[in-house]
């Protein structure tokens, strides 16, 4: 542990690396996310002591132990609630929630949606590996239907949940997706999340080498990923493909893929805008994976501004102090109907 106060301007990844041995399985996608975030934080211009990492339970939730910041490894599913209390009291902090698909979407589903709807200024990073890793391989709320695991030898009969669609339905002001094998993309997305004011929700496709290996080949396989995924860029048309010769357009309200000669896309392709006032377009992005043949979108689906919970809680306190003056304890104790009992002696 460093004894020196680290000056912000010279912060590097090393300053965010704690003295604890990292105990994830060799080859786990979590290593890449840890390294990326340790690289991103120095770029945000926030003093190190102002960062707080709050996690729940699961493999991903061990994350705070490896960060040389304030950290709190809490209980299963409750990190967004604990982070909400911290941020409400301390709007000056940059509060990050590290969670997984079981932690955030199963046991902690309620806290996740309420933190998002309140627009608490939290960065919620969901490591989605579509499996319970720490408990050794049971299916999770994002596991595909029919998945065979230790707890579902005949295949799961649960329909999975779509994390980005859920976040949008919960009124998140920032929703993004990235994956653990593309460091550059992950860096851009995490930086954008860190810079967003309000609740930022980032789903990271994260590979579990032990219990659910190769779950995300659609975005990770070098041969096919450019044809099976699409990177969103603000103000740019929805174009993808190894040859950049495919695009997406709306046809009678449905999204469909159109092919064209590279460099001459048609005019009617959909254009990406993450800042649209309404969330209809972002919902379409979140639902693309339901339509066969459409690529998986990666990047920032939605990023809008509205007052944050912590800001408004603080403003009400300030407002009350300005309007009625700072609390006067004597006055409060003596309020209401009072009477005096005289000393008769």
């Amino acid at each position, binding site marked *: 542990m460093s004894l020196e106060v680290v000056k912000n301007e010279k912060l590097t990844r090393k300053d965010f690396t704690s003295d604890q041995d990292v105990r994830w399985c060799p080859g786990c996608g979590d290593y890449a996310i840890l390294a990326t975030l340790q690289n991103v934080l120095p770029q945000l211009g926030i003093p190190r002591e102002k960062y707080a990492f709050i996690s729940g339970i699961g493999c991903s939730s061990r994350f705070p132990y490896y960060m040389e910041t*304030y950290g709190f490894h809490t209980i299963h599913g409750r990190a967004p609630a*604990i982070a909400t*209390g911290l941020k409400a009291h301390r709007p000056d902090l940059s509060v990050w929630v590290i969670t997984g698909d079981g932690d955030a979407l199963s046991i902690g589903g309620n806290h996740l949606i309420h933190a998002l709807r309140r627009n608490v200024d939290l960065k919620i990073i969901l490591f989605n590996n579509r499996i319970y890793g720490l408990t050794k391989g049971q299916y999770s709320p994002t596991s595909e239907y029919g998945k065979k695991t230790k707890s579902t030898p005949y295949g799961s009969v649960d329909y999975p949940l779509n994390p980005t669609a859920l976040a949008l339905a919960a009124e998140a002001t920032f929703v993004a997706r990235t994956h653990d094998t593309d460091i550059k993309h992950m860096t851009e997305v995490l930086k954008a999340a860190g810079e967003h004011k309000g609740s930022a929700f980032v789903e990271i496709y994260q590979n579990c080498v032990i219990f659910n290996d190769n779950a995300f080949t659609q975005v990770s396989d070098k041969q096919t990923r450019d044809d099976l995924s699409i990177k969103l860029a603000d103000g740019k048309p929805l174009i993808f493909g190894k040859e950049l010769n495919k695009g997406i357009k709306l046809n009678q309200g449905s999204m469909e893929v159109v092919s064209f000669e590279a460099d001459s896309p048609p005019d009617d392709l959909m254009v990406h805008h993450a800042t649209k006032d309404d969330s209809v377009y972002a919902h379409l992005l979140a639902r693309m994976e339901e339509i066969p043949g459409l690529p998986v979108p990666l990047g920032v689906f939605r990023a809008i501004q509205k007052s944050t919970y912590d800001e408004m809680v603080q403003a009400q306190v300030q407002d009350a102090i300005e309007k009625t003056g700072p609390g006067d304890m004597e006055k409060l104790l003596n309020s209401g109907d009072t009477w005096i009992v005289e000393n008769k002696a």
Partner: protein
Amino acid sequence: MTTHSEANPQKKTEELESVVIRFAGDSGDGMQLTGGQFTNTSAVLGNDISTLPDFPAEIRAPAGSLPGVSAFQLNFSSSEIRTPGDQPDVLIAMNPAALKTNIKDVHHGAIVIINEDAFIPRNLERANYESNPLEDDTLKNYRVYRIPISTLNQNALVDIDISGKAKDRCKNFFALGMMYWMYERPLDVTIEWIKKKFAKNELVVEANIKALKAGFHYAETAEVISTHYKIQPAQLKPGKYRNIMGNEATALGLVTASTLAKTPLVYASYPITPASDILHELSKRKNFGVKTLQCEDEIAAIGAAIGAAFGGSIGLTGTSGPGLALKSEALNLAIIVELPLIVLNIQRGGPSTGLPTKTEQSDLLQAMFGRNGDSPLAILAPCTPGDCFHMALEAVKIAVKYMTPVIFLSDGYLANGSEPWMIPDYQSLDPIEVKHPQLTSEKFLPYLRNESTLARPWAIPGTPGLEHRIGGLEKEDVTGNVSYDPQNHEKMTHLRAAKIQAITQDIPDLEVLGKPEGDVLVVGWGSTYGAIYSAVEKLQKQGASVSSIHLRYLNPFPKNLESILGSFRRVLVPEMNMGQLAMILRAKYLIDCQTLNKVQGQPFKISEITAGIEKLLSSTHEVKNVARSR
């Protein structure tokens, strides 16, 4: 003493020491409000008071039905009193259902005031009366005043331009006005209140004040009630007083603690009866820097309080039994990460949803043991509505000094009951010390303990150089790193227990009411204080060898508890549960305590405690006699 009234020489005045009144009516009849007004007026007049609101869990059960009856009992006196009274001397019944559910509690010879307009066949049927109790011998043992309150009230308001229904809603003030005349109370406190409460509607202000005055004048002039009564002010300790309810005192204590500690309060809660009033009260105190969060559930509420405490605030959550059950996992997190946290548990009848609006003391074992692992925390219990203020201060002091969660066990009876409260001198209250360490040349160790309190340092985010991690996995002693070492786990388990025991140094010795030794010791905790005190005092005056102690610190116990227990032949533990404190006392001190239990959702009557003590005293004497005859 009997004199004649000046305004109406036909009427007599009698002086009484104390009176117990119960207002009873439909949930929509405004009985809680009426009782509250009588209480405030009596308090300002200088009487000692104690109140017991008793209302159904349903907001508006069907009008006129038995489950829809709401009642408010108050005892007001010229001498010191400690309970709302065992039996009403006066019952005001606004309808047949109110009469039916309440008359069994009223002693023979008592006054029963009836709104006879409400005794129509439909209402009698709803109250399951086969014949009209005003016409059969149901009330033969009472002094019954049949008064057409609804009609008189309508007539009084004939000139006011509001609907008949709106006029009818004023009838509780008519009844209150009559009671004010009967007990020589001034109208001004209530008139001021009406003006403030209905400020937005002049006609409603006018109607309510007119109804109040009409009731007063009716009682004064009509040849129905012939006597009115004087109850002199009580000789309370000199000082400035206000009337206070338990939940109100709790909230006030917390704001005071926050101000004394110069540390902001974050109160995170989920609505639950009977704790919600604390959330309402604290949400008005934003200019004291108080932040209130209404969370999505009980677990989120305690989570947010823990998060706020991690950030350096006084983190609080409030709930009742079922909510405490939901919070138990997070409570354990606060125990292992050793953060200050205050959990207010306003107990109600259980198990499960149980009796939401009724009182009980049945969460003691849950507070003590309701978590996985060996997980000790501090437990406090206020003993009167006013004591909620003092114990809330204590809860905050202990939480921040010992870096521990504290459970504050109030209950529905304390929460909604009220009493005159001597306003403390703020300047004379002890400051509460809160320390957050800063970077020094020494390496920062998150679990390095204070030698005397065994508390770890409360380093908060934002402090340069003290970045550290805490969490629910077992901590290594001193460093706070994750540790699975068997010896370390045992050491930490002992340290957590020793830290809670260390609180004993700040807990005042118990004071014995009565002689320090004798035949029977009555041991109470929490809201049973008033009934136990009154019963013991009464029997002492009759020469019985009985004393009592009252526990407000339940974990750890005061140091002198064991020696006091050992100074009496028999120990009696009255509790509003099946014997939870008794179980702990037996286990901890190997004493044979006798239990006296009541689980009816209602507080103990003095007579019930007296009977329990007498029974034990007589069996003690038998034992002594047998011993002698040998």
